[in-house]
């Protein structure tokens, strides 16, 4: 059992509005907003590693730890520039981490949730694990495919998973994968990103609530007992349906996709960095290509939770 510390985010400065995109994809700004809930997104100039390093540095700065205190790095990205190496070793080197294992998780949207859960299970052996999710989705889209192109943005998030106590304890989690629908959402090496929106919508609206119900049942909790749901920020229409499936109001769900779009695996950590977490139970959930999906149950001790982190 480990604790999640100091979520931090980095969003590139360049704002791409619906109005800007609408002209280029042959749709209206309102069509984009209605179909997704997205008003604007960010596009980056640099590499996936560039984005990840800035978010990781922001997280490290919040923890007060030095690079030498980190025992492992996990970097989630589905938009990496190379087949190999992934961005993890570059991010590790640029952060000055002392030759610790740096693992890539290239599964796109659910990657940061999988990374958090893996780190939770590995923290007893590796100590402080820095989890980073960085995505340059603007490099994957085809403006000739408006249904997909309008959804995505660039960004990065980071957090520390540590055995040292903190205000946010990772209590339980469920992860699932199913390759039966592997071809409905994919980024071939010669690009661009291809998504069968109807099927992705169908699977996501089924599997996200089911995985949340699964972890809640294990914790003997009802959906209404959760203070805040922080989901992968894919599409407002998806979040609305998850809320409906759980018989909850939408106010229980944190939303920032209106400003950043779908930043794939970065979105969960960016949302976590911005979400006003109330004391009590919090649910994280994600769904993405693979298909991979899952949910995690965290307990938030509130502002007065013990926050000192032991160096490795």
């Amino acid at each position: 059992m480990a604790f999640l510390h100091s979520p931090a985010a980095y969003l590139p400065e360049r704002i791409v509005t619906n109005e800007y995109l609408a002209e280029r994809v042959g749709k209206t700004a309102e069509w984009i907003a209605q179909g997704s809930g997205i008003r604007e997104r960010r596009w980056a100039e640099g590499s996936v590693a560039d984005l990840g390093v800035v978010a990781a540095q922001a997280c490290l700065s919040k923890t007060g730890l030095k690079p030498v205190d980190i025992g492992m790095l996990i970097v989630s990205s589905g938009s990496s520039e190379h087949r190999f190496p992934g961005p993890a070793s570059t991010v590790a080197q640029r952060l000055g981490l002392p030759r610790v294992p740096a693992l890539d998780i290239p599964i796109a949207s659910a990657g940061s949730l999988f990374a958090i859960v893996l780190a939770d299970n590995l923290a007893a052996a590796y100590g402080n694990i820095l989890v980073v999710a960085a995505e340059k989705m603007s490099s994957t889209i085809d403006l000739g495919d408006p249904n997909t192109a309008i959804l995505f943005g660039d960004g990065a998030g980071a957090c520390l998973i540590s055995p040292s106590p903190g205000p946010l304890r990772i209590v339980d989690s469920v992860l699932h994968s199913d390759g039966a629908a592997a071809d409905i959402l994919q980024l071939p090496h010669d690009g661009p990103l291809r998504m069968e929106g109807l099927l992705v919508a169908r699977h996501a609206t089924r599997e996200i609530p089911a995985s949340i119900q699964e972890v809640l049942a294990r914790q003997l909790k009802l959906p209404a007992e959760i203070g805040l749901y922080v989901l992968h920020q894919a599409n407002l229409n998806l979040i609305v349906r998850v809320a409906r499936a759980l018989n909850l109001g939408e106010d229980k769900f944190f939303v920032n996709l209106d400003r950043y779009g779908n930043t794939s695996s970065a979105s969960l950590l960016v949302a976590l960095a911005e979400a006003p977490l109330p004391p009590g139970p919090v649910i994280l959930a994600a769904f993405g290509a693979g298909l991979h999906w899952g949910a995690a149950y965290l307990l938030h001790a509130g502002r007065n939770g013990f926050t000192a982190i032991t160096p490795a």
Partner: protein
Amino acid sequence: MPKQSKIRELVQSVSKNWSDPGPEDPLFDSGVLDSFELTDLVAALEQTYNIQVPDSDLTPRKFESIARIEAYLESRGVLIQ
């Protein structure tokens, strides 16, 4: 109740942009249904007519109009009421 009326009722129940489409009018391209609403509609059709729509059938083409939906239901053995 004629089946097209029931289909129209189901489409209207999931649509935010209901515009009283004719039997052949496009539902998807006209904005009557977006991706998520079409997914909602298919779930409603499954429940109403006690059928399972496999992933391989979930394409906009099969559900692009009231008439198309009716044809799909007939192809799945749903009897006209």
